[in-house]
């Protein structure tokens, strides 16, 4: 994203958010972008919602506002499947990338790319949260409701977050991205508990489905630069997608990845197959009518979301794991995102007793 950083067409600033330091920083970093002060962002949001493609329209604008709820929350995961005990920081909502499978299209009612600028409240909340959990190790990250680095050239928030978490040895802080927007990260002192991770897919799927995201090779190259700087890196193969030729394409991706990245510096890899709530399918059908990925054999899972019929998921995961192991990744901690006990047993050959055991299994390499 270095050559083509996202620039909004306009920045809307809620009047009561004008005086925050982060607002001032973003204004300074976007001097050429028109700004408008608004009293009520809900009116903007309602106006956007009646447009033909509200989701795409919303990506043109940035809204600076206050987080009125909690910044830190447990990752909602999904009922009836095994989670990983992850915590999320809701600093940004939405993302300038436009991945056709993205759950945010369904999940967020506000189509505007939004940054919550009241950072003092975030630090206060994090202090309380970290203090409460000081006796155990846990993972926390910002990449759940947006891309952790896609706006970083404007917000520079990665610098603040890395500085905040650097000294907290029991906290594993993750910035999760599909971009190569790593300038600010590279200017920071690394720490072993800071993990910069990338979502990866086969080149074909990335090209077809991840509109606006850099090519997979560029992402892996960015990961290497971050690793060379001294950070740990993580990779998320999510969503894994079946299509004619998927085995070969994913094998190529993993070969390329493991050739470029030293496995010992990989903090974790997660695997998740394509899954989606029923309503997302109709949104995607309208927005991306040529997308065929939803016409494979999906069944309604125990959580009401569609996912591949179990034997197909097993085949998918077994192959991916075999590619990872074959290419030097036998010791890389692996976990599933939102999978069933049956599947853990069948593929991983062990069943975690719950999300905390999944979490613990990921901390081993840190000693």
């Amino acid at each position, binding site marked *: 994203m270095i050559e083509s950083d996202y620039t909004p067409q306009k920045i809307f600033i809620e009047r009561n958010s004008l005086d925050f330091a982060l607002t001032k920083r973003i204004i300074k970093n976007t001097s050429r972008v028109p700004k408008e002060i608004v009293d009520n962002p809900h009116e903007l949001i309602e106006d956007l919602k009646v447009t033909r493609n509200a989701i795409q329209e919303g990506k043109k604008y940035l809204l600076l506002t206050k987080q009125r709820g909690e910044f830190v929350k447990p990752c909602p995961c999904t009922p009836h499947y095994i989670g990983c005990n992850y915590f999320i920081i809701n600093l940004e909502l939405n993302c300038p990338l436009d991945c056709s499978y993205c759950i945010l299209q369904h999940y967020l009612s506000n189509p505007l790319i939004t940054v919550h600028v009241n950072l003092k409240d975030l630090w206060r909340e994090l202090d309380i949260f970290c203090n409460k959990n000081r006796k155990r190790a846990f993972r926390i990250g910002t990449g759940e409701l947006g891309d952790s680095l896609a706006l970083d050239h404007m917000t520079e928030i990665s610098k603040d977050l890395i500085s905040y978490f650097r000294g907290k040895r029991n906290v594993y802080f993750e910035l999760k991205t599909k971009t190569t927007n790593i300038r600010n990260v590279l200017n920071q002192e690394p720490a072993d508990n800071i993990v910069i991770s990338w979502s990866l897919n086969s080149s074909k799927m990335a090209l077809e489905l991840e509109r606006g995201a850099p090519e997979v090779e560029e992402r892996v190259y960015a990961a290497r630069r971050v690793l060379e700087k001294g950070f740990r890196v993580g990779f998320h193969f999510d969503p894994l997608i079946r299509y004619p030729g998927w085995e070969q394409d994913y094998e190529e991706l993993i070969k390329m990845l493991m050739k470029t990245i030293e496995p010992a510096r990989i903090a974790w890899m997660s695997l998740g197959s394509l899954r989606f709530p029923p309503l997302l399918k109709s949104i995607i059908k309208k927005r991306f009518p040529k997308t065929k990925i939803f*016409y494979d054999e999906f069944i309604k899972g125990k959580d009401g979301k569609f996912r591949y*019929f179990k034997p197909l998921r097993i085949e998918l995961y077994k192959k991916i794991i075999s590619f990872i192991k074959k290419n030097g990744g036998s010791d890389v901690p692996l976990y599933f995102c939102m999978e069933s006990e049956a599947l853990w047993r069948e593929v991983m050959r062990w069943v975690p007793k719950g999300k905390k055991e999944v979490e613990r299994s990921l901390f081993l390499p840190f000693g």
Partner: protein
Amino acid sequence: MKNKYLNLNDIYLKDERFRISYFFSLEELALSLKKIGLIYPPLVSFRNNHFILVSGWKRVLACSQISLSSIPVFVVEEEDELKTFLIAFYENLATREFSLLDKAEILRKLKEFGEAKRNILEFYMPLLNIPQTLSHLDMFATFSQFEPELKEFIHEKHIPFASLEMLAEFNSSERRLLLPLLLPLGQNKQKEILENLREISLKNDIPAEKVLKSAEILEIVDSEKLSPLQKANKIRILLKRKRFPHLYSWKEAFDSFLKKACWPEDIAINHSPFFEDEDVTVHFNFKNEKEFKSHLLKLQEVASKKEFSRLFKLFSDD
């Protein structure tokens, strides 16, 4: 508005520019007219040397059915087309619930008579209980273009919005081929046919028409032994099998296990929904100790057979 008596023949029914509804049954209204006469006069307008109907199609057609020669009418003096249509719209809005096809017709006519898109979105769509989005407006415009025989089917079967949305994804000749398959089925099965056909077509890049004209479907369609309901159900299952081949092969393997293991008919056995879990449940009813023990014996007998272990291999990749 002026009150006037008109011969039914003097109302030019071929001009349907203000008509909203096309499908209704006239029997009850005809009976009411016979018993108590016409209480609410229809609205007409004089245009191009004709009296044309603005509102009251059902009343006029029912009067015609019972061979009334003249009826009282109100003559609308408004000349503007949109304003005249709005008279028809509000009169209907106040007195009855609009069907999805009525709503499609109203939105189409509002547009044709020059109402601004923004007004349609912000004012009329909420009045019609339609979400205020352009995609809904587009979708209703497509519904209004459906073939007359399809519209009649939608009216008769009270087809819901979600199914209309699916029908809109097919072209006119595909919809014609689909109609006899949908007619005998209930709404859920109709939806299943539409969804599976669409997705088979999209996944394999084959027009739905080609799928519907494939040899295996034509063989069912042309069969003289099968009733329309049997044909529709056979094709529904065929499409489902094509859409979910792996799931179907698992289901068949499960059924075949039950057959080979001679599973007792009075004991139900079920796999988890879509085989998502490894659990299998067994269910039986009993009234007394004797019946209970008899079921246990049957289960024991099945469990002692060689075939029984196959049940657990079905769910494992080993």
